[in-house]
């Protein structure tokens, strides 16, 4: 399949917890067949609904970290003096690098008079290729205290593209990361459409505007849907007006419905249950898919 025929939809939210993952999983079911990715590598949850069977696991490396070879360390203390990140700990005459504090600048490695510091690549997590009932899935998880750069997200997306081309699947659906930082940019650059899921709250409006500004920067078409819209209809209208004036299309509203949690308990997408929110999500999907 030619790359031009593949469409990629990323589901975003300003803050986390707006229902992004529940909607992504529902879209995966409604699309019939798509390549799915979980780009929320910091707190990946899509696998809890799609129950992927992992077929491949790959370690993910990013940057380096300093490690002192105890047998070669002379205890001169140079590393302790020059480290700007307070990453060198001493116990008696022995020196160790605190991996949490080490930023991987390599200064101690370069200036250790005994050349006793190694600088291996830092293992920051892993990424996986799996199969699900809705199609292939690429997902990942970042290690604790690892730096959440966009690199792992880019890796996940590249794999998804390879699979889409290879298996002739014309659609990629990504559960995106929260926020507006580097991982979000990595998840949205060059996609066909970004759907921003927001809630009708004061912070929801604030975060939405930042995500939409980002979409404009990267010339990515944007759509907006308001989840739990009925908890504050007034704010929903303000959000929809703000979305339209920021050049985004409004593709629907989803009501507050406890069945969303029920679906989670049953490890299902909301649309796999018969509920009011499922009907709402179907309409959002119809509107959103029409923009792809």
């Amino acid at each position, binding site marked *: 399949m030619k*790359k031009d025929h593949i469409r990629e939809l990323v589901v975003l939210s300003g803050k986390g917890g707006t229902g992004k993952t529940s909607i992504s999983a529902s879209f995966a079911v409604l699309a019939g067949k798509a390549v799915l990715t979980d780009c929320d590598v910091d707190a990946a949850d899509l696998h809890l609904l799609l129950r992927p069977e992992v077929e491949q696991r790959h370690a993910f490396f*990013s*940057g380096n970290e300093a490690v002192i070879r105890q047998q070669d360390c002379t205890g001169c203390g140079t590393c302790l003096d020059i480290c700007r990140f307070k990453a060198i700990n001493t116990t008696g005459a022995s020196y160790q690098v605190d991996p949490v504090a080490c930023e991987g600048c390599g200064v101690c490695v370069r200036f250790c008079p005994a050349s006793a510091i190694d600088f291996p690549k830092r293992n920051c997590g892993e990424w996986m290729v799996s199969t699900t009932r809705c199609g292939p899935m690429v997902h990942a998880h970042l290690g604790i205290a690892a730096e959440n*750069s*966009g*690199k792992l997200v880019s890796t996940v997306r590249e794999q998804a593209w390879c699979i889409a081309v290879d298996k002739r699947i014309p659609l990629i659906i990504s559960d995106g990361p929260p926020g507006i930082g580097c991982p979000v*940019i990595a998840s949205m*650059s*060059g996609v066909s459409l970004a759907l921003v899921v927001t809630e009708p709250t004061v912070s929801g409006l604030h975060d939405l505007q930042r995500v939409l500004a980002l979409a404009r*920067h990267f010339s990515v078409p944007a759509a907006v849907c308001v989840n739990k819209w009925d908890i504050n209809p007034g704010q929903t209208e303000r959000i929809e007006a703000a979305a339209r004036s920021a050049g985004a299309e409004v593709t629907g509203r989803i009501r507050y419905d406890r069945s969303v949690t029920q679906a989670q308990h049953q490890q299902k997408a909301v649309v796999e249950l018969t509920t009011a929110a499922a009907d709402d999500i179907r309409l959002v999907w119809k509107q959103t898919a029409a923009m792809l």
Partner: protein
Amino acid sequence: MKKIAFSTTGQTLGAELDPRFGRSIHFLIYDLELESTQLLDNQQSRNAAQGAGIQAAEIIVRAGADTLVTGHCGPKAFRVLDAAGIAVYNCAAPTVGEALIALRSGSLSPASSADVEGHW
């Protein structure tokens, strides 16, 4: 203008012009005098957690190119290219070959600044 660098996903003049600069798959260098091409891999920049554009710009500088044709160029990469005296042209042509024709026909004008916001 002597050596022109193109960002590309492929390996030949018929290949797609990669709209990304920093995370482009390859760079194809076209020598106008010799009418020859040289392919450079951009894997190292693509692997960078941050500063891919800067690293890609260094590759172009080291290759001795004096001109770059790409889709979009961010501010950091532009600063490096500008400091090294490399002219940057933004081009929406689908292939490298078509971008080369557009450049030679004089229908592209050099960028005076980055045309996209930087990543962070």
